[in-house]
């Protein structure tokens, strides 16, 4: 069967689930004929890095009609998608000239690189390196993934929670797994990532006669709920803090809370541990007992009225936590992606603290499993002389406010912006429109060329965000270039893989390193750009780093090195079992006084004095508040508002199996394998008169999209859900109805109060049938309606 011209190329899947699965590309005549992956025999400690469906669709992605082949220059209005082909010299000359002009006119703070994880996902951007060598740029901090959790963990534990959680292997000591909005089998589905690892841990537990049931607290029924011993607890989106309050109330009531630790290791759980200056009645205990300002006891009955979870089920979780020897309590990043996500994130951690499942083998701190060090393909972005930093989500607000954007809006490193935001450099980022929020409002900001004067995008495919660029620089994908990749989020392995270039001869794409170098030359900073790399080059630089990381993270057992497949025997990958990590905060739990946390008090700050101070200075949106304890705060678009207003349904997004954010979401073949549709409970289907398979319009205050209804009991009534990532597709000069079904057509720019993070899961909608005119338009577009 093997065609003589076929070549196997060892490569890596570079999408931002972060798992870096193995691809063995079957290349024929410069095209990927199909994708093989790691089919080496499995072992418990060295699992095969099998790619999921996203890696399997990799060939379809690089050869998709939306692939960028040549540098482009905009010819129509911003966002119109009208471009003409230009040469690399023209594209880089224009980009460098605009960069110089804007830096000289406004200063480096006028230049912004939004958050992004698409394109090659090769770590820090060489384009950023070139700009840093020249003048620097406005920074951002945090991200679109877990901003509220980071801020919540910082207030509570004094770290951002990215690395401090317990690793999944701690489940070997657990007898209960409590998941808040977490589905590793979807978010990390690669063969050596946490999804399959969790299955392996559960199977091993069953074989050892040590059951490891799952409790999943989630508006959606996920594949983690697999047996009758598991328990699905659906709650209304954004009400986790109310649910937790009900559970802790019951634990206290029954005398089953870890009161000794709550008193000794925490600040402000009880009144007598409140920090100086905190008003009486402001402790979490007072909140629970109705002794605080709201005067309402947080009984399971109260929790039921807020969350939609019956009071007996709230009690049942309290009971199961009491019976468990070691419960592993964790959260995904969906719950915190809401208006009061900091409250949500902190409350889940508080459940671990209050139930005593904290700091002991088999337990966790309530945050997600730790993110292991990822690859840094190229030498870093270099030193950025600008100190000012925006919360990643707040660039639209900064674009609107200009120099009126201050520390009160979340700016760090400076009291206020020194320059208005005038230039955007998109590097593998679809966070201008598609993956940001309120696309229609954001379009209007970008459309106005007097605000942002120049946008340049560097990407692999023509995303909706790249359509707003004035110049587009087409990049080679990670898996088309010579590269060095480490194991990333494949938790169980330490690994170094060298990928090989194969697609240089088609079209006019460049590696991001070549693009960065081209810019550096035009900015007159080439020697700074390449300094430290003389005689070796960027790949060699990274190879050293990658092997150092391998040595540091491997368990020290025999490493496995060798050929990968019969016709790839000169292409090696080195891997070893990953070193185990201890459970979260073990030392602190054992002796809080001797091993203090990096919080101001050294303890867990259930009541955060820092947040009380922030509340005094922050300029918050109308009606928003900062709460020093992890209490439930109703969102502007939460369940209470849904009951009262014109938009009766809570709309949430989730990571579907079928795309990594917006990567791959445009592929017809992916849609055929797993079509996108709005999950609607049959109860709501009847109430709102929509049928399974029907095309509907979903409307929020900010926009409308078209999608198909999927009636399923696997979502809670009152809640509808779409997988994230669909590509926005609307006539922005006309109806603006989004036929692509991108969730961010509906979502809000309203940031969370502490992190100033993206709260897409606080969004209310209504459903309606398509009008006859819309049906006509849909049919003309080939839409099934």
């Amino acid at each position: 069967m093997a065609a003589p011209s076929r070549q196997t190329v060892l490569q890596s899947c570079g999408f931002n689930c972060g798992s870096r699965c193995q691809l063995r590309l079957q290349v024929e005549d410069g095209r990927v004929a199909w994708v093989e992956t790691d089919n080496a025999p499995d072992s418990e400690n060295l699992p095969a890095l099998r790619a999921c469906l996203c890696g399997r669709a990799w060939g379809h992605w690089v050869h998709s009609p939306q692939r960028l082949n040549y540098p482009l220059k905009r010819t129509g209005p911003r966002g119109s998608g009208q471009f003409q082909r230009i040469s690399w010299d023209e594209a880089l000359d224009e980009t460098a000239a605009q960069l110089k002009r804007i830096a000289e006119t406004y200063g480096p703070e006028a230049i912004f690189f939004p958050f992004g994880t698409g394109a090659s996902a090769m770590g820090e951007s060489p384009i950023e390196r070139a700009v840093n060598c020249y003048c620097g740029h406005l920074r951002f901090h945090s991200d679109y993934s877990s901003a509220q959790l980071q801020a919540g963990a910082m207030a509570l534990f004094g770290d951002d929670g990215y690395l401090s959680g317990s690793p999944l292997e701690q489940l070997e000591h657990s007898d209960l797994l409590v998941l808040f909005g977490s589905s590793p089998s979807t978010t990390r589905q690669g063969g050596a990532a946490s999804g399959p690892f969790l299955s392996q841990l559960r199977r091993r537990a069953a074989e050892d006669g040590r059951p490891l049931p799952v409790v999943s607290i989630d508006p959606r029924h996920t594949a983690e709920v697999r047996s009758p011993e598991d328990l699905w607890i659906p709650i209304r989106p954004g009400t986790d803090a109310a649910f937790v309050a009900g559970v802790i109330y019951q634990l206290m009531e029954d005398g089953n809370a870890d009161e000794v630790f709550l008193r000794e290791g925490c600040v402000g759980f009880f009144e007598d541990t409140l920090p100086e200056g905190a008003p009486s009645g402001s402790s979490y205990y007072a909140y629970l007992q109705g002794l605080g300002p709201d005067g309402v006891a947080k009984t399971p009955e109260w929790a039921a009225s807020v969350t939609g979870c019956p009071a007996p089920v709230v009690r049942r979780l309290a009971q199961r936590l009491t019976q468990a020897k070691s419960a592993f309590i964790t959260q995904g990043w969906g719950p915190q992606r809401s208006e009061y996500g900091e409250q949500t994130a902190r409350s889940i951690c508080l459940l671990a603290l209050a139930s005593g499942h904290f700091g002991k083998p088999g337990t966790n701190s309530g945050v997600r499993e730790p993110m292991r060090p990822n690859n840094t393909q190229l030498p870093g972005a270099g030193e950025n002389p600008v100190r000012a930093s925006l919360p990643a989500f707040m660039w639209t607000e900064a674009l609107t406010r200009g120099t009126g954007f201050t520390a009160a809006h979340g700016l760090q490193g400076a009291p206020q912006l020194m320059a208005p935001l005038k230039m955007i450099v998109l590097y593998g980022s679809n966070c201008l429109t598609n993956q940001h929020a309120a696309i229609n409002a954001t379009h209007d900001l970008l459309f106005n060329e007097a605000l942002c004067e120049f946008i340049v995008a560097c990407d692999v495919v023509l995303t909706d965000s790249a359509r707003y660029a004035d110049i587009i620089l087409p990049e080679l994908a990670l898996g088309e270039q010579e590269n060095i990749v480490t194991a990333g989020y494949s938790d169980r392995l330490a690994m170094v893989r060298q990928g090989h270039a194969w697609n240089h001869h088609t079209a006019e794409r460049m590696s991001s390193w070549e693009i960065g170098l081209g810019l550096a030359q035009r900015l007159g900073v080439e020697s700074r750009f390449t300094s430290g790399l003389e005689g070796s080059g960027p790949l060699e630089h990274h190879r050293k780093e990658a092997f150092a990381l391998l040595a540091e993270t491997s368990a020290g057992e025999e490493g496995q090195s060798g050929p990968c497949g019969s016709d790839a025997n000169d292409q090696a990958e080195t891997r070893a079992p990953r070193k185990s990590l201890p459970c979260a905060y073990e030392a602190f739990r054992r002796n809080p006084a001797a091993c203090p946390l990096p919080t101001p008090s050294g303890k867990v700050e259930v009541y955060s004095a820092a947040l009380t101070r922030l509340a005094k200075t922050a300029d918050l949106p109308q009606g928003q508040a900062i709460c020093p304890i992890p209490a439930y705060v109703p969102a502007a678009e939460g369940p209470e508002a849904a009951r009262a207003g014109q938009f009766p349904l809570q709309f949430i997004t989730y990571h579907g199996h079928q795309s990594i954010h917006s990567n791959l979401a445009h592929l017809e073949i992916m849609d055929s394998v797993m079509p996108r549709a709005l999950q609607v409970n049959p109860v709501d289907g009847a109430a709102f008169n929509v049928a399974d398979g029907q095309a509907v319009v979903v409307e929020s205050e900010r926009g409308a999209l078209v999608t198909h209804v999927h009636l399923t009991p696997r979502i809670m009534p009152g809640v509808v859900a779409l997988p994230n990532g669909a590509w926005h597709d609307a006539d922005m000069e006309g109806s603006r109805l989004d036929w692509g079904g991108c969730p961010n057509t509906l979502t809000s720019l309203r940031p969370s109060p502490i992190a100033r993070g993206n709260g897409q899961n606080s969004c209310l909608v209504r459903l309606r049938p398509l009008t006859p005119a819309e049906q006509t338009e849909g049919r003309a577009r080939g839409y099934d309606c």
Partner: protein
Amino acid sequence: MTVKPQPTASAKEGSSKRRQFGFSFDQNLCTGCRTCEMACKDYHHLGAGVAYRTIHEFAGGNWQQNSDGSWQQDVFAFYVSMSCNHCSNPACLRFCPSDSIAKGEDGFVVVNSDTCVGCQSCMMACPYHAPRFDEAIGKTVKCDGCQARIDQGLGPVCVEACPQRALGFDVYARLSDSPAVTEQVGMMPDPEITQPNYAISPSEFACGPLSEGVRLLNCREV
């Protein structure tokens, strides 16, 4: 339409020359991710219109609202990854009027596309909906067990793809040699009809009284 005589000797026994391969499926591991389906489409160049392997999503249970507005439910779900089961007594073969379907040396049920007339009788006969119509060529196509890969000592592409290791492949007598496996779960047809070579380790939700009221949720996809 003529009905052909059924094979007399069971191909399940296996011999040095003839053997019967089959798939296995651990339902407790499947998360419905569809990597098997995508890998199959990618390897066999099927495009958007045709799938040899599909994921069937089943769910059951009901919702009821309490007087305080909270919700009671007993929802459960499970998946079946389904392709051709390379049956020992394949209905497609029996109903093919042009003798275009045969059992190969490894027990795979294969379509001879040179002689297939595209009448789709096999599609109507197969209780597993395995044969599919390829409009581009006007003929029936189906899973061939990745015969070319088996000949090279590899596994079927779907089995090698499964990130959860839910799919397996072997001589069927080995896969089915356990009281824990079954050839029928959920709404699947009686295995006596075609003797499928598909060994399922079932989810507790998929058999017995728990499975009552189960519905196929994604009928348009499969």
